[in-house]
C-alpha cells in the first residue's frame, strides 16, 4: 500500500505566516460535541483525490481505500485490534493443510443493485484483478494462487507486451456451488484468512464485467453499508447513502455521507474549523500543536500502521558489513527527532513490525537505541572509512528534508562522519533508482500494511522472493535463514505459532539490519460538533459506517 497523504504538508509549511493566525481560533469550543447521537442525518468527510477509479482491485492507496471500504464489505472484517471477525460475507474459511481453502458464504448478502453475492462474484473478481491486461494495481495479491502465472502477459526484455496470457482464469479458484468456492495456494499460508479482508479480495457484481472499463468510471456497485449515489467526480468527490438492505451487523448510522476531495490539507482544516466540514484525516504540520486544545476531545489520535525506515544499500561495499549498519542505527537518536521535528505525529520505532499488529514487540530492535560508544566501536571494528561523507537519500517534495537532515547531523556529531543530502528526486525517479540499486547510502522509504499480520511487514520487504522487480526488497537483502523462518510462519498451524516464527524472522532481520527502523506513524484527525463516534481503524482510516450524526 502506498502512502500519499502527507504530500500537502510542504505546501502548507510555506504559508506558516498566514496560518499562525489560525492558532488563536476556536476559543469558544470546549470540546465534547453536545447533542444526542441518533441514526440518520448526514456528514461530510475530506479525502485527497484517489489515484484510480473506485474499483477495489485497482485501489491500493489510502484515499481511494477510504471510500472503497465504505462501499464494500468483504469476506471478513477486522476488529478494533486487527483481529479477524466473521462479520462479513464469509460464513467460514477453512483448510486442512493451509494450502487448499474452502470458503463458505452466508445467505442473504446482496450487491447495491439488488443482485445476490455468490461464489462467482468473488472468483470472477479475483480472476479479473489478476489478469494482467486489465492492469489492476492489486494484481500481485493473487500471486500465491495456483495458476496466477498463466494470467500474466508475456513480455520481452524491454518490457513490451508480446503475447496475451495463456489463460483468463486461475486454476486454483473453483466454484463449488453458489455459496462455496475453493482456493488452492502454491504453498501453505496459514495467514490466508487474515489477508482476504483487503480491498483486492472484494467481490464484484455481474454488471461490472459487462464493460469493466465503463463500469469503473460509473457508479460503483458494492456490498457495503453505504451505496454510491452516482459516479465519483474527479477533484470533487462522491455522495454515499445508507444501503437499506445491508446484510451485515455494522450497518450505516448516518443517512448520507458527502465525501469531498481536497488538494490542500490546510484548506480542509480551515473548513472543519469553520464548521463547513465534519471529518478531516489530515492536520497541517503547523496546526498540530494547537489542534488538541482547539478541538478538545474532537481531536483523536491512535497509532497507525505506517512505518518509516532507512533502507541500507547492502549492494554497496561500504555498507555490506552488518556492523556498519548496526553502528549507524545506534548513532541516531530517534526520540530526539520525533520530539523536535514531528510534534508527536511519529513515534520512535524499536521493531520492524508496527504496534498495530499482533506480534509487535517494543524494544525488539537492539540497535535502535542510541549508544554512541558502541556505535563507534563497531564502526572501527568494521574498518569503516570515515573520511567520506555518508550520502542520505530521500524523495523530494514530501517533507522529508528536516528529519533526514537531523539524522545527518547526528551521524556527524556521534560518529564524526560528514553527510550529504540527496533529496532532489521526485517519486517517479526515486523509485526506479531504488529498483536499480542506484542508491549510494541510506535511503528513506515507508510502508503501510495491507492486512494486519506481521508477515505483511516482513515477506514483501525483505524476502529473497521480493527482490526487485517482483517486490519491494530494495535493500537487496537476502538471507536463507530469514526466508525459511517466514516460510515456517506461513505454514504454521496456529496463529500463535505463526507469530512466533515471524518474530524469529524479525530477530534475524534486526540483527542483519538491512534497514534501520525509524518511526511509526500516529494517525491524527479532528471532527466537528456535528458528529460523534468517529473511530480510526487499524489501517488509519475512518470507520465511515460507525459515525453518528448528532441530532
Amino acid at each position, binding site marked *: 500500500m502506498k502512502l500519499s497523504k502527507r504530500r500537502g504538508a510542504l505546501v502548507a509549511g510555506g504559508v506558516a505566516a498566514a496560518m499562525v493566525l489560525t492558532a488563536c481560533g476556536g476559543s469558544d469550543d470546549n470540546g465534547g460535541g453536545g447533542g444526542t447521537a441518533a441514526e440518520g442525518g448526514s456528514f461530510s468527510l475530506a479525502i485527497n483525490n484517489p489515484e484510480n477509479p473506485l474499483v477495489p482491485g485497482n485501489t491500493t492507496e489510502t484515499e481511494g481505500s477510504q471510500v472503497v471500504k465504505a462501499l464494500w464489505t468483504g469476506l471478513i472484517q477486522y476488529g478494533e485490534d486487527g483481529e479477524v471477525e466473521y462479520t462479513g460475507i464469509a460464513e467460514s474459511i477453512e483448510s486442512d493443510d493451509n494450502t487448499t481453502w474452502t470458503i463458505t458464504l452466508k445467505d442473504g448478502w446482496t450487491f447495491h443493485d439488488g443482485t445476490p453475492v455468490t461464489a462467482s462474484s468473488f472468483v470472477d473478481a479475483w480472476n479479473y484483478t489478476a489478469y494482467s491486461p486489465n492492469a489492476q494495481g492489486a494484481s500481485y495479491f493473487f500471486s500465491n494462487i495456483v495458476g496466477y502465472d498463466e494470467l500474466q502477459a508475456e513480455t520481452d526484455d524491454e518490457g513490451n507486451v508480446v503475447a496475451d496470457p495463456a489463460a483468463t482464469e486461475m486454476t486454483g479458484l473453483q466454484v463449488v456451488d453458489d455459496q462455496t468456492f475453493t482456493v488452492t495456494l502454491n504453498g501453505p499460508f496459514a495467514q490466508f484468512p487474515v489477508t482476504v479482508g483487503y480491498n483486492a479480495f472484494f467481490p464484484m457484481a455481474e454488471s461490472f464485467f459487462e464493460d469493466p472499463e465503463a463500469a469503473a468510471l460509473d457508479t460503483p456497485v458494492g456490498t457495503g453499508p453505504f451505496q454510491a449515489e452516482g459516479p465519483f467526480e474527479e477533484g470533487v468527490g462522491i455522495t454515499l447513502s445508507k444501503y437499506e438492505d445491508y446484510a451485515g451487523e455494522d450497518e450505516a448510522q448516518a443517512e448520507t455521507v458527502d465525501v469531498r476531495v481536497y*488538494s490542500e490539507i490546510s484548506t480542509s482544516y480551515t473548513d472543519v474549523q469553520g464548521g463547513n466540514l465534519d471529518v478531516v484525516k489530515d492536520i497541517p504540520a503547523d496546526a498540530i500543536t494547537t489542534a488538541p486544545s482547539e478541538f478538545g476531545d474532537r481531536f483523536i489520535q491512535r497509532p497507525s500502521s505506517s512505518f518509516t525506515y532507512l533502507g541500507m544499500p547492502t549492494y554497496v561495499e561500504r555498507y555490506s558489513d552488518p556492523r556498519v549498519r548496526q553502528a549507524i542505527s545506534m548513532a541516531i537518536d530517534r526520540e530526539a527527532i520525533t520530539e523536535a521535528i514531528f510534534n508527536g505525529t511519529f513515534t520512535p520505532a524499536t521493531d520492524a513490525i508496527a504496534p498495530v499488529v499482533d506480534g509487535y514487540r517494543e524494544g525488539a530492535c537492539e540497535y535502535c537505541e542510541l549508544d554512541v560508544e558502541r556505535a563507534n566501536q563497531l564502526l572501527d571494528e568494521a574498518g569503516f572509512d570515515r573520511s567520506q561523507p555518508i550520502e542520505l537519500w530521500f524523495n523530494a517534495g514530501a517533507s522529508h528534508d528536516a528529519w533526514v537532515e537531523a539524522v545527518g547531523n547526528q551521524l556527524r556529531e556521534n560518529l564524526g562522519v560528514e553527510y550529504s543530502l540527496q533529496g532532489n528526486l521526485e517519486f517517479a525517479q526515486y523509485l526506479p533508482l531504488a529498483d536499480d540499486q542506484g542508491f549510494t547510502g541510506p535511503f528513506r522509504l515507508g510502508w503501510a500494511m495491507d492486512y494486519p499480520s506481521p508477515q505483511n511487514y516482513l515477506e514483501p520487504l525483505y524476502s529473497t522472493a521480493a527482490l526487485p522487480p517482483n517486490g519491494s526488497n530494495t535493500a537487496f537483502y537476502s538471507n536463507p535463514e530469514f526466508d525459511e523462518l517466514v516460510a515456517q510462519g506461513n505454514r504454521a498451524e496456529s496463529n500463535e505459532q505463526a507469530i512466533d516464527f515471524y518474530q524469529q524472522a524479525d530477530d534475524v532481520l534486526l540483527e542483519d539490519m538491512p534497514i534501520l527502523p525509524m518511526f511509526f506513524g500516529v494517525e491524527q484527525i479532528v471532527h466537528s460538533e456535528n458528529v460523534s463516534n468517529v473511530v480510526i481503524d487499524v489501517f488509519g482510516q475512518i470507520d465511515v459506517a460507525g459515525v453518528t450524526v448528532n441530532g
Partner: protein
Amino acid sequence: MGRYIARRLLLTIPVLFGATFLIFAMVYALPGDPIRALSGDRPLAPAVIAQLRDEFNLNDPLLVQYFKYLVDLAHFDFGTDFRGRPVLDTIEQRLPVTARLTLVAVAFEVLIGVVAGVLAGIRRNGFFDNLVLVSTTLIVSVPILVLGFLAQYVLGLRLGWFPISGINEGWYSYLLPGLVLAAGSVAYVARLTRTSMSENLRADYVRTARAKGLTPRTVVVRHTLRNSLIPVVTFIGADVGTLMGGAIVTEGVFNIPGLGRAVFDAIRAQEGAVVVGIVTLLVFFFIFFNLVVDVLYAVLDPRIRYD
C-alpha cells in the same frame, strides 16, 4: 476586417502544432518513470507495468508518441489519463468551473480596477490617488498564496462572509477566489488606467474639448476615457488567457475543481495526454482572446483599421 480575422485564425494552426509538440516534448523530457510512481512503495506486478506502458505508448520514442497522439486527435480522441478516464471528460467537467472563476476575476478587474484607476487619474495626487497607489503596491507585493490563505481565514473563517472552499454555493462560491485570483491584475489595471487617464487629460484634444465648453463629465467619459481604455482593454484581454492558465494556486487554496488543478495534478503524475489536452485548450483561448482584443482596437480607436 474579415480577411484580417481569417488570416489570424489560420495562423493559430501552426501555433497550436508548435505548442502541443513543445508541451509533449517537455512532459516526455521529465525524468522518471510515471508508471513506477503510480505503484508507490510496492511495485505493480511486472506484467501489469508492461501492460500500462504499452497502453500509453510509453516505450515509444518521442516522435512516435507524438505522431500517435496526433492520429488519435484527428479522430477527436484526446486520450485517457492513467485512471482510464477520457481527457475530454475532464475538460468538459472542469472548463465551466475555470471559466466561471475567470469571468468573476475579469469582472473584478473591470469594476474595481477601472473605476479606481479613473477616479485616481482624475484627482491626481489627491487622497484617493494615494490610497490607490499604496493599496495596489501592497497587493502586488504579497504572494497570491498568502493572499489566498489570508482572505480565506479572515473573510471565510473569522467573519464567515464567504464559503471557505468548494463550489457548492453557486456563483457566491466564486466571489472570494475570483477576487484573490484577480487581485494582482486589479492592481495593475488600476495603475494602468490611472496613468493613461492622467496623460490623456493633459492632451491637446482634451484641452480643445474643454475650450469648446463641454461639461467636465462629457470630457472625461466621452473623450478621455475611451482613448485611455485602449491599453487597459489590451491588458485585460491578454489577461483572460493568463488567468485561465494561472489559476493553479487559487484553485488549490480554495479547493476549486478547475483546469488549473487538473493540469497541476497531471504534470505531477506525468500524464502527457492530459497536460497536452488542457494546455492546448488554454493556448487556444489565449490566441482567441488576443484576437478579440485586436478587433476591439478598431472599435475603440477609429484610426486603427485592419484592411
